[in-house]
């Protein structure tokens, strides 16, 4: 399944950069994977998603419902129902992710059928800085492992040892 990973956020705005950190770590683990970074969502996601069957998005969120550094996986439907929200998938200048997906589909753009979003609870998304809060920093390997597990569903990426191949041909 042709998959793209989108790390969202601002790498110089403390915990807002968690999505970027995870994306960069994933890139080290799976150099051949298609991984992009985006500072803002909304219609910009249509610049990167066409042609993929699946998208894995990782972003910060501030819900107050779970502890900092914990994360939730959710789907586009939850964003549509507004039972979940992350910091950057919506762009206040244009639209949210479900609207962008609907726009693309109406316009006949081939967009991923499967959308999985990792929202990582952040502590501070208001202070300029390149470091994450300790709890959020500790979440990086956990989220990466979870996303690796999702990537492993692509059989082409798995070597005989079970690790993700750095050189596997793209599906």
């Amino acid at each position: 399944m042709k998959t793209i990973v989108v790390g969202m956020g601002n790498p110089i705005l403390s915990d807002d950069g968690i999505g970027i950190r995870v994306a960069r770590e994933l890139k080290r683990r799976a150099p051949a994977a298609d991984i992009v970074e985006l500072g803002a969502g909304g219609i910009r996601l249509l610049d990167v998603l066409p042609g993929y069957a699946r998208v894995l998005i990782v972003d910060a969120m501030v819900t107050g419902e779970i502890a900092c550094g914990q994360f939730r996986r959710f789907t586009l439907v939850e964003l549509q129902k507004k039972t979940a929200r992350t910091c950057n998938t919506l762009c206040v200048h244009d639209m949210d992710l479900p609207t962008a997906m609907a726009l693309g589909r109406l316009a006949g753009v081939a967009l991923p059928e499967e959308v999985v979003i990792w929202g990582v609870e952040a502590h501070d998304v208001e202070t300029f800085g390149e470091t994450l809060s300790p709890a959020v920093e500790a979440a990086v390997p956990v989220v990466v492992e979870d996303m690796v597990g999702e990537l492993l569903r692509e059989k082409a990426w798995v070597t005989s040892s079970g690790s993700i191949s750095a050189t596997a041909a793209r599906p």
Partner: protein
Amino acid sequence: MRQIAIDPITRLEGHGKIDIFLDDAGEVANTYFQVPELRGFEQFCVGRLAEDMPQITNRICGVCPEAHHMAASKALDALFGVEPTSAAKKLREFVYMAFYVTDHTTHFYALGGPDFIVGPDAPPAERNILGVIRKVGVDIGKQVIACRARNHHAIEVMGGRGVHLAAGLPGGWSKPMSEAERAEFETIARANIDFALFTLKAFDDIVLKNEQYLALVTSDVYLHRTYSMGTVDEKNQVNFYDGKVRVVDPDGVEFAKYRPEEYLLHISEHVEPWTYLKFPYLKTIGWKGFVDGKDSGVYVASPLSRLNVSDSMATPRAQAEFDRMYTTFGCKKVGGRYQPIHHRLATHWARLIELLYAAERMLELVTDPEITSPDVRTIPTKVVGRGIGSVEAPRGTLTHHYETDERGVLTKVDLLVGTTNNYAAMSMSINNAARKLISKGKVVDNGILNKIEMAFRLYDPCLSCATHNLPGTMPLQVNIRRPDGEILEHLRRDG
């Protein structure tokens, strides 16, 4: 005192909200558009190398990184005392025009336009780009996506990266344009012109020929007679990339014209205790509060103000549309320039005229023989220690001010972002809308949420540049409360 609180539920809960306070008679006493603070940007930058600023500042905002990249590159030109080559300036401006086309297109179809195309009283769930498609047809959705894609491609090729440009350097640009790229970009620029003309035609058909919408555009709900600001070239024509900052008074008389590095002589900032963001105003006039008129230092920096300060447009089709807009509003020419338009909803029309100008200017640049010159950089040889650079960001004049030690290590960073210029004007527009729409403690117009949103949507505020947080298409709540806090009426809308 009864309070109506409009709380945009933003990513930063509890921040960035509009409070409307009523007096004992139930009339609007005051409104407060509060903006939170992002902490520590200057501290983040101080101690770093100045040449990193084009990469750092284009991370401030995910929507207008190109504007920060350009202002930062220009500030570095000054800081290192180096004049970019002519080809480098043209390459920067070319990339900037591609950005303008995408930004203005996105705003019109996704944010500002739905109020008119779908209708200001349409249910919020329909008042978005999907509603635009339902009204105008699916082809428009395809065109918007195609417009973004082709210009995004041009920016990525010439900027080194698609989202956060990497090509701006003190003294020039790191990527020359090949002939093959130029030929492709010429096709893109021509498509952009066709698209801009199509968009203006749609605006004409749907808005200007609709008496109800035209009445809204020209109504006094969104009328403010303030000073206007914008950058002009040597012919006093609109220029987004370079020139002098010109300010005209509410009657259209030139009040000031200065080089961007002189901005501190002309602009001061007013502080209010209820918000972190400061309110810039014209220094020689002074801060007189949130009031209109020639005696108030409040000014606006927007697509409309840029046209207000300009004698004309530098490209022919945009000039024709410019003439049409000012004559539609009955503006007469005084001293060779149209009187300013103060009806703020005309900003949407002005934005489309700018879209056409950006597309035409892109074609001019890409058909300029010098654009493929390999001479794209002048190497700096010294550190001046102070550099100020300015461009017209889509949302207003953007100024970057850096100071360094003799090694080029930053000691001071100050940014005056496009939207900040308009903070006072935006607050006044919200206040004006609230006063017109609330009377005797009652919301007399249930479209108040949208009417107030329209007041700040027309500025397309990018407070994220300063705050990374703003109310836009977010859910809104209005609570009308008794003095004891009990809710009399509750309105809610999900964005």
